[in-house]
Structures are given as C-alpha cells and as structure tokens.
C-alpha cells in the first residue's frame, strides 16, 4: 500500500515535471516514398515504417506509446498550418561541360535559357549552383575545375538576367557523381553543374 503510494507519487512528480505530449507521424515524402524513423527516449524506442504510423511521447523516462495510425482529420487539424506553408518543390536543371573545361556542351545553352525563365516565373528566392567533375584527374584539379564551372554558371545566370534574392555556389569536385564510377574514369554525365531554383 505504502510502496504503491510512493511509486504513484514518484510517477506524478516525474510526469508533472515534463513538458507537453509530443506526437510524431510518418507520412510519404513528395515522391510518394515512405522512409523510416526511430523515436528514442531513455525508456525505450519505437520504429515508424508505414505511412500514417504515429507514436506519442509523454516523458523521457517512458517508452514512446505503441504505434497507432494517425487519422486524416487529426493531421489536418494539428498540421494544417505547417503543411500549408511548406516550400514548393524547387526546379532542378543540369548543365554539361566539355572535358576539362568550363565550356558548355551545345545542348546546355538552351537549358540556361530555361533556368533564367524559371527564375523569373517563380520570382526565385534562391538559386543554388553546384559544380561537379568526373573522376579522371587529380583531386585538386577536379576541386578547382568544379569550382570554376560553378562560378562560370553564376556569372552566366547573372549576365542573362536571372532573378534571385540569394545565390549559393559550391564545388563538389568529383564527390556526389550523377553516375558512380571507379576512380580515373572519364564520364561525360558527371562533368556538370546542377542548378536548383527555389
């Protein structure tokens, strides 16, 4: 009797000291894929791996609640505001270059026009440019070349009147290839700059 009273008191104190309930729901991403998420507390963990899987956390010392399925009405009520303000999917473009240079391949000139048009139509907030190379040549050479390609695209877009509030330019060197290859392989599809218009 006394022991259970103490336990009850202890639980009340512990739970009372905690913040509000936290709810976590797994939903499909914009491409329709469902990944997985593991919700972890000091008391245990729960795996969410199906669309609509939901768990709730009331205290850091308790295991998250058994996985249930979230109802559409609940999601609309609780997440309507956050879902309505989700940034629209960006538009992505790829420009290809001649080997070892910042010279665009002829078909890519038309893509430059498309990028400029997209930036104006969307009244773009941000444009991100990343430069890439294939795996032929030294790391230093590829880092520099990827940087030069990205800088070139930055200048070209500015010159053509692309619209943006911010721009970010990065060099990936031979990292993050479009087509993974062994080292030292000349691969035209990896000699590129990727442009994302937000």
């Amino acid at each position: 009797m006394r022991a259970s009273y103490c336990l009850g008191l202890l639980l009340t104190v512990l739970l009372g000291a905690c913040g509000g309930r936290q709810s976590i729901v797994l939903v499909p991403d914009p491409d329709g894929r469902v990944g997985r998420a593991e919700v972890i507390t000091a008391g245990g963990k729960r795996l969410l791996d199906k669309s609509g899987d939901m768990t709730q956390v009331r205290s850091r010392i308790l295991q998250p609640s058994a996985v249930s399925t979230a109802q559409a009405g609940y999601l609309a009520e609780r997440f309507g505001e956050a879902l309505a303000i989700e940034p629209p999917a960006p538009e992505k473009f790829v420009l290809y270059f001649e080997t070892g240079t910042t010279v665009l391949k002829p078909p890519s000139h038309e893509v430059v026009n498309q990028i400029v048009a997209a930036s104006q139509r969307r009244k773009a907030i941000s444009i991100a440019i990343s430069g890439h190379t294939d795996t032929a040549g030294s790391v230093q050479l590829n880092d520099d070349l990827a940087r030069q390609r990205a800088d070139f695209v930055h200048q070209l877009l500015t010159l053509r009147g692309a619209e943006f509030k911010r721009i970010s330019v990065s060099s990936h060197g031979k990292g993050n290839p479009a087509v993974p290859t062994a080292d030292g392989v000349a691969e035209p599809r990896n000699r590129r700059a990727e442009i994302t218009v937000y």
Partner: protein
Amino acid sequence: MAYYSSMTFLWGTGIMKLLFCIVLLLMLPAISTAAGEAAVVGHIQTLQGSVWIERGALRLGGEAGSEVRQGDILRTGKPGAVGLVLLDNTTVSLGSGSELVVRDYAFQPREGKFTLVMQMLKGSFSYVSGLIGKLAPDAIRLQLPEATIAVRGTKLLVEIGD
C-alpha cells in the same frame, strides 16, 4: 595570500575594475565576430504572419530570402508560419507558436561530411529530408524536449503540446 590581499586592495581602489573593463572592451570585437561567424545553413522560402530569428542578442524580422545560421532560434508568432530550406534541400515548415534551432549542420559533399541536428522546441512541424537524408541517413537527429528521432529519408510531422 599576499597576492590575494593586494588584488583585493587594488580592486578596492578601482584600478582593477578599470583594467577589467578595458580587457572586456578589447575582447568585445572578438566576441561579436565569433558570434557573426556562425555558418549559414539555409534560408526562409515562405512565410506568413509574424516570424523572427533570434541570433544571440539580435532579434531579426524574418522575410523571404532571410538567411538562417547555425544556432539561430527561428520562431513563429500566433498567427505565424514559415518554410525553411536548408543548403542540402532539407525543408522544415513551422506552424504558429513554434520554435526551431538548427544546432549542428554540415553539408560538405566534397569531404563527405554530413551532419544535421535540429531541435524542435515547441509547436508543429513538417520535416522533409533532403540530400543529407540520401547521402548520409545516419547523420540526422531531430531532438524533441523528451525524445530523439533518427530519421531515414522521409517526411515526418511532429507536434509538441503545450
């Protein structure tokens, strides 16, 4: 012992106070530079109502294109909502009365360095994973007041009750 007593004496005369203030003043630029150097991790893409960014003692009104730096507190009022895009195309949107901090962020594909640690402190969130989710899914942690979420490439909705 003699050292302490002479220090106390000097402090009493005000000389040490003066020296202390001078040292503090000299350090100020260094302190503010260090605070100003937190890396940009993303930008505000969409917003509605009141949205602001707290950076140390600074409180900045958010607008489309505002940069968000590591350690900034991104807050929404009531009503207020904001959509944030990180450099790797991870997006997080916040409903009203929400608070988010990007605590630790690295997106360096050339070096293969990826980290994303976000604190969801209060409110409602929609999280959609980006390139870090593809390239290094184990590098992502969402920290809630009483739980941690390890996310592997997906979309999650998170609500933190009052």
